[in-house]
């Protein structure tokens, strides 16, 4: 059956199911509600087609289908919708390292970044549910190994880890990162406000 032939009743049901949920809905969850003659994937495809270009879109992420607002509306929505804080640079880099090198120990992360991994950064990633401990490395001290979670995939709109660009492709384009704003200029008047001042 082609997407255009999906009965309206099935579309309504799929729409309601995915709409109601804050989490992605798996094809299996939908299949339980559909008659056997209908495939969940076909219904999802028809629904995605119907919502294409609208203010809310149906996207495939880890775990299934989810309605999300269209990305181009972000600047307007930001004024109204409450947002969690963005992850700081250190946390983003740590997350990227965990995503690419998992399972990986804290020491290995620090080795790659050439900097200490602060407890604060680790806590932020754990609290956001983006990383989980995944066993221990069979090495002296048996350090904890870290891995990325399903939440990580969902948050960045990935179906699975293979959606990440290959490491070789990452090197090609060394786009300059925003340089952190300079610390307080040590002018005479401001000297006392410098973090290490006096």
């Amino acid at each position, binding site marked *: 059956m082609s997407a255009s032939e999906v009965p309206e009743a099935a579309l309504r049901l799929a729409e309601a199911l995915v709409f109601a949920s804050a989490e992605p809905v798996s094809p299996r969850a939908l299949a339980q509600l559909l008659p056997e003659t209908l495939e969940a994937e076909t219904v999802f495809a028809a629904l995605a087609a119907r919502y294409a270009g609208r203010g809310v879109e149906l996207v495939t992420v880890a775990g299934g289908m989810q309605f999300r607002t269209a990305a181009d509306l972000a600047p307007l929505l930001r004024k109204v919708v409450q947002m969690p804080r963005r992850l700081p640079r250190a946390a983003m880099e740590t997350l990227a390292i965990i995503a690419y090198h998992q399972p990986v120990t804290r020491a290995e992360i620090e080795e790659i970044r050439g900097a200490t991994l602060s407890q604060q950064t680790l806590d932020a990633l754990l609290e956001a549910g983006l990383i989980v401990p995944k066993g221990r490395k069979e090495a002296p001290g048996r350090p904890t190994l870290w891995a990325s979670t399903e939440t990580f995939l969902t948050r*960045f709109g990935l179906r699975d880890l293979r959606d990440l*660009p290959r490491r070789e492709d990452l090197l090609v384009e060394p786009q300059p990162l925003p340089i*952190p704003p300079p610390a307080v200029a040590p002018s005479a008047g401001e000297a006392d406000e410098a973090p290490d001042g006096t």
Partner: protein
Amino acid sequence: MPEPAAPEGAEDRAAEGAADSRLLLRLDGFDGPLDLLLELARGQKVDLARISILALVEQYLAVIEGARRVRLELAAEWLVMAAWLAWLKSRLLLPEDDAAAEEGGQAAEVLAERLAALQQMRAAAAWLGARPELGQEVFARGEPESFVAIDRSRLALDVPGLLRAYLAAVRRAAGRRGYTPAPVTYWTIKDALARLGAMLGELPDWQTLERFLPPAPLSPLERRAAVASTLLAGLELARTGTARLRQDEAFGPILVRKARGVEQSE
């Protein structure tokens, strides 16, 4: 890899002269020496694979030197890296056929690889950051509806839970009762007299006294008590003329047998 310092290095140094003063004031903005090195490498504006490590080293040392003039408390990690880079520089400046130069060349390659790896992950973080992130650029249903009804009417029961509860109850109560040591009962002289008296008649000849110890397995303490009681019982029987005792040598086994009629003591 060691590269000639001039002319490329010289140009870089000149170009970085202004950048140094800009950089040295904000080392706090960097996540460690490697981060600064990568930033400096980017300043060379070429493919990371082709950067001049020597120029990079000199830039780093210049930044650290400048920063030290301003801030004496510069963190150890920056200085350790500076020391290592100074060592690397000395190796890179040696003629290429020198063995130490090769060592330096390898170290430079390792440094370049580390910078490339960091650059890669930096790019990965940027790639992730550029994606529409849920909760930042795209938003999920703000007020999800739940059609799940939770039925709590049933009880969760399992045998392990039952056993744990039983043990917990019994142990707690036992802990409250206080400790009473198990009573120890020793083999009394009376017990020994009864056993010796009963068995003696059935045995024709000299037997060691040990044969008349109680049959149950004994702890060392119980055994000693039983030996003492049995000896005393034997002495008592000898005193009344019912039994005869004999010991052939000091600390040798004590033998016992039933007295037959009137006998002389040996």
